[in-house]
């Protein structure tokens, strides 16, 4: 089937060439990072994780959100999602790959990556995260590829495919729960040390993931004429709305606990992010932008007339994705490091090298998604004719 990705029009190849250029640029930036060390990034002793881990967190969420179409389609037979489900699964595949690449990019000694498996340490959440992520990647790739192959040949899928898909449903929840547990189990990082982190991760992931899925399906419709259907998109928009609401509800509970209890450790990070601490307010505009655009997009999506209009839908979905990307990437990861264990407030600005590597990894993920979706569209269009 993969040969179908090799046939395309001029704009398809321009797009592929553009992605390859971005990837090449990322690789050369990464080469620089390997040579000079992570000093070429904006990270430092006090803010020891930055853009890479933020992208990782966001993308694990996008990966997990495939369950928002897989679950209704396979467990509740929601036929509207017939054409969307495979897009969701392939989005999960490329998002998982990207998140793993971001971990790799963040490592000081990537040549020792296998040590995680050579010295398995069940007490470490990273060990579990690597297990669930690689499992999830394989599971989605194998099951969706097998489903697509069967569809192409016009035969029912092999008997093992369905159980694998059913397994991927709880697995998706576990993927993002374990990712939340990476942070939520650390004493002394009070922004993360909260039981609501895992539920909030799931809510924000489902909101951002479904919004992104709507955008991808609209792009597909525009570029290839392959339409997953307005009905599917409207349903997805409803899912995005309510999971988005849940996310902001959880954020509200964080605010209440932090500011009503008035315990300094609990409120300092939130204070830094949203109001500034000791006159330092690097992220304040960004966080308010995130909050306002998130809430506004949910209001738009709540109005049926607006969510059925494509321009409004695109605007709202983009705003929601951006809002959660800022909230989960910038806010959650960087905010967790401020104030530092010694009460220092340190600023963080990603360097050009860091941004190029990040774009390169996004390029790899989008390239993979483009190729996979190209195959999907070719197979589906072939069947329709």
């Amino acid at each position, binding site marked *: 089937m993969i040969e179908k990705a090799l046939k395309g029009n001029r704009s398809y190849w321009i797009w592929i060439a553009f992605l390859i250029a971005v990837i090449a640029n990322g690789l050369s930036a990464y080469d620089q990072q390997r040579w000079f060390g*992570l000093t070429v990034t904006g990270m*430092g*002793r006090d803010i020891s994780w930055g853009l890479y881990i933020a992208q990782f967190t966001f993308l694990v969420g996008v990966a997990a959100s495939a369950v928002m179409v897989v679950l209704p389609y396979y467990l509740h037979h929601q036929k509207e999602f017939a054409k969307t489900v495979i897009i969701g699964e392939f989005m999960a595949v490329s998002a998982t790959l990207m998140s793993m690449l971001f971990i790799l990019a963040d490592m*000081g000694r990537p040549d020792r990556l296998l040590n995680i498996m050579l010295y398995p*340490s069940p007490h470490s959440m990273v060990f579990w995260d690597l297990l669930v992520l690689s499992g999830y990647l394989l599971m989605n790739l194998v099951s969706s590829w097998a489903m697509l192959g069967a569809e192409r040949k016009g035969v029912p899928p092999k008997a093992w495919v369905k159980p694998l898909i059913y397994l991927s449903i709880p697995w998706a929840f576990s993927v993002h729960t374990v990712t939340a547990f990476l942070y939520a189990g650390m004493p*002394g990082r009070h922004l993360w040390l909260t039981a609501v982190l895992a539920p909030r991760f799931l809510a924000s992931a489902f909101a951002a993931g479904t919004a992104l899925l709507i955008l991808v399906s609209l792009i597909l419709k525009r570029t290839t004429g392959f339409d997953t259907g307005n009905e599917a998109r409207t349903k997805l928009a409803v899912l995005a709305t309510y999971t988005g609401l849940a996310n902001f509800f959880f954020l509200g509970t964080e605010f209440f606990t932090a500011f009503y209890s008035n315990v300094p450790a609990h409120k300092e990070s939130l204070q830094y992010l949203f109001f500034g601490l000791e006159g330092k307010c690097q992220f304040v505009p960004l966080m308010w932008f995130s909050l306002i655009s998130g809430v506004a997009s949910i209001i738009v999506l709540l109005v049926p007339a607006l969510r059925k209009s494509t321009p409004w839908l695109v605007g709202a979905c983009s705003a929601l994705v951006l809002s959660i990307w800022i909230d989960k990437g910038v806010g959650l990861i960087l905010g967790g490091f401020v104030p*530092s264990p010694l009460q220092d407030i340190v600023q963080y600005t990603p360097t050009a090298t860091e941004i190029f590597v990040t774009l390169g990894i996004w390029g790899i993920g989008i390239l993979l998604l483009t190729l996979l979706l190209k195959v999907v569209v070719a197979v589906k269009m072939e069947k329709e004719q």
Partner: protein
Amino acid sequence: MMNEQRREFIKKTALGVLVGLGAASGLVPAFSLEKTVLPVWDEKPVPGKIRWGMLIDTRKCKEGCQQCAAACHHAHNVPDFRNKKDEIKWLWQNPYQKVFPTASQQFVSKEIQDRSYLALCNHCAESPCTKACPTEATFKRWDGIVAMDYHRCIGCRFCMAACPYGSRSFNWQDPRTAIHDPVTTYPTREQGVVEKCNFCSDRLVKGQQPACTEACPEQALTFGDLNDPRSDIRLLLEANETMQRKPELGTKPSVFYII
């Protein structure tokens, strides 16, 4: 005991004579490489029998004195990049509210606020860093020391996020470029691994006190076995009111402070 001292003496004199002769004849360069030293531990150590700890008498700590940190960083080839972002430190001085942010901050006497307080790895009995490490590159040793196996570290920096004391540093770049006065008795680290205070396990094995303890002109630092009720450190803990950093986190630090 006697035997060991005698052997040490004989070895040193013999070596001294040899090096002296060699240096005199210009054959052997003056040589300070760590020669094979008698390790204190002969047999496999019993886990949990010893728990090394440190007591810092902050009343004795003199303003402007940096001898402990200088001795530590020199003895362990800790690089100095002269910028805060890439900074690597094992032992350093801080104001009161940074070291004890969860202790009472109101109406603290000026004298207490003016003092400086040493921060270093606490070698916690319940260490969050070893729990977070995915490769057991940082691990709890048999003697309570939270050790680093630099050969195994993948540089994921989970331990840095997990440490509530900011005691860990990462080698953002090649440390060898910033070691201004290297010693040959201890290895360096390399780019991409995390490092921190090792409670001078390299010196303990030779029966020596930690470098900082030895360097302090005021004898403000007491090092010893917390599991031995008769050790100096335990007697001092018995006789004084002491503090640990952020005890509410349940990490059970092995470093104590007399305020």
